[in-house]
């Protein structure tokens, strides 16, 4: 871990704080009935997004699931765009046409959040194929949950990426629950992603997904492998969500002792303690926290002030000509 320079580590900490505070704000706005529809919070899983988000280069592609607020922010998408989209406002990343589960910001490399489990893995393979075909140095990174490892698209995507030696990175956020059901109850192997790696001629990689340094280093190694033309990687990050599957889920099915033990490994306080132990002055960290909170507050107010989208926009962009005509 000593190999990570201090400025990078402070940036990782800032990213963790941004993702945590923004996600908490999303939850608050939901309780105020300002976030409509559903939302799937990534509280507790921020280290995976922060580690990859910082390791990835500008042109790299992120593909994430409906639990994708953290990955979207980690690539630099504006908080107001994220919160505004959750609230169905004009300032949203998708101007209200996609919602929480489909956050996308192409200019930040966020190639979409996909709400059909596993659907985005083959799409990420296609983006990696395109990068390989065009001879660009881009890599495509697909984030997904442990439940995804039991759906066919996971296996079709891994196999094709391996056969074509594509610059694709598959990152499993194993938070131990597919939705409400423990992943171990429905999976034949202990590590739902890593234990399948051998099927595609890939090494089994398991990372502490709550340790942002470990994730950052694993991400760097996989990205280097992708850019060298050595093919895909499959990385299983062990983590835990602090809240339920979605807003409808109080997560009462989880044993209290299990929740407690994972809260002790919360990626934020543990990383904060590590930085302090390495001699970072606490004031540096409190300044980061204060600045981020102010930024989240500003984004919240901007999103609240943004109007709902114009009704006419419901009829735009079905087709590339901007319209929705299906007949003459």
């Amino acid at each position, binding site marked *: 871990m000593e190999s990570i320079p201090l400025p990078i580590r402070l940036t990782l900490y800032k990213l963790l704080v941004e993702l945590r505070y923004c996600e908490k704000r999303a939850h608050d706005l939901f309780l105020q009935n300002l976030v409509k529809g559903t939302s799937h919070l990534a509280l507790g899983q921020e280290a995976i997004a922060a580690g990859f988000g910082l390791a990835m280069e500008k042109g790299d*592609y992120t593909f994430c699931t409906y639990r994708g607020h953290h990955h979207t922010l980690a690539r630099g998408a504006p908080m107001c765009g994220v919160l505004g989209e959750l609230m169905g406002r004009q300032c949203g*990343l*998708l*101007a209200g*046409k*996609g919602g929480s589960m*489909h956050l*996308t*910001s*192409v200019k930040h490399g966020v*190639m*979409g959040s*996909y709400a*059909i489990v596993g*659907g*985005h*893995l*083959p*799409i*990420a*393979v*296609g*983006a*990696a*194929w*395109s*990068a390989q*075909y*065009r001879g660009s140095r881009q890599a*495509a990174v697909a984030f997904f949950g442990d439940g995804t490892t039991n759906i*066919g*698209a996971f296996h*079709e*995507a891994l*196999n*094709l990426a391996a*056969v*074509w030696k594509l610059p694709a990175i598959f990152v499993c956020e194993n938070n131990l629950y597919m939705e409400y059901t423990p992943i171990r109850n429905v999976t034949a192997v202990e590590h739902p992603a890593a234990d399948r790696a051998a099927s595609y001629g890939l090494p089994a990689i398991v990372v502490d997904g709550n340790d942002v340094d470990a994730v950052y280093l694993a991400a760097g190694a996989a990205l280097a492998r992708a850019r060298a033309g050595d093919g895909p990687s499959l990385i299983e990050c062990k983590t835990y969500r602090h809240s339920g599957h979605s807003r409808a889920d109080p997560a009462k099915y989880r044993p209290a002792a299990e929740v407690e033990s994972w809260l002790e490994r919360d990626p934020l306080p543990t990383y904060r303690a590590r930085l302090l132990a390495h001699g970072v002055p606490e004031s540096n960290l409190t300044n980061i926290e204060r600045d981020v909170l102010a930024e989240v507050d500003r984004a919240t107010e901007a999103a609240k002030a943004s109007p709902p989208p114009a009704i006419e*926009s419901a009829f*735009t*962009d*079905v*087709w*590339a*000509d*901007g319209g*929705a*005509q*299906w*007949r*003459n």
Partner: protein
Amino acid sequence: MAELSYRDAVAAGIAQEMARDERVVFLGEDIGAAGGVFKTTVGLLDRFGPRRVRDTPISELAILGAAMGAAMTGLRPIAEIMFSDFLACCWDYVANEISKTRYMTNGQFTMPLVIRTANGAGSRFGAQHSQSVENWAMAIPGIKVVAPATPADVKGLLAAAIRDPDPVLFFEHKSLYSLKGEVPDGEHVEALGRAKVLRRGDDITIVALAAMVPRALQAADILQAQHGISATVIDLRSLVPLDTQTLLAEVTRTGRLFTVEENPRLCGWGAEISSIVTEECFFDLDQPVVRISTPHIPIPAADALEDAVIPSTARIVTEVLRAVDFRPGAARGI
């Protein structure tokens, strides 16, 4: 003009577009070295190489997903799904991903890709390799649906589909693959969304698609020669976009409309056309719209059974005669 088979027109259309645009790539099962299970892609691997013509595993999800990811990042992929029935294996991409991503992202992506597939009955393959599923596709906002009936249209409409910035589901009809016809020399590109009036008559209008087009034409000949009924025959060519102007003009002129559909009855494309015609030119109609379709059953395998359920030339003639005879008072001299 050169004579080409419908089958060879597929490869000709793909080759024309791959030669002019480096972004066009092609993927699918057995399309390269094997030349396609219907021999529609013979020669493409030799001409364009394995970088652009890629054999895939039997992974329909990966084929359409990869095509989508490539289309979102600067390429113009053509994906083959061997039989249209197999679209059910990767329907997530057709119904949820490819068709909706531009809309959901407020126009951040365009999705220039083509899904080619072999559709329809006539090969005695049974219920999982013989379906006409064009009506599944037209029910989804965000994807264009094209189904050519002639070799010239295979080449011209396929070229148009590849150049189109939107996703196109391109239904080739397997019973037409051996059909031969004149194809214009040189670059040939048709416009999407325009129906073609193949013959013009005064008494009735028959609208058909793909393999039902030659049957409708034969029926029109018989109706003229044996019964003195003069029929317009329209090849729709495209369900989305739908050329309602051509359709409404002919129906208004003739007052009688017959749809000939290979898809099963419920929610077949003729139902939408019937609805449009009823809403928009009801007072020009001399009789109810008559839909001639495959019954609402799976496609049976035995030749006798398959032939009995798919609309035939004889059945079109019979249905037309029954309809016009049933309401002699409304007839325009027929």
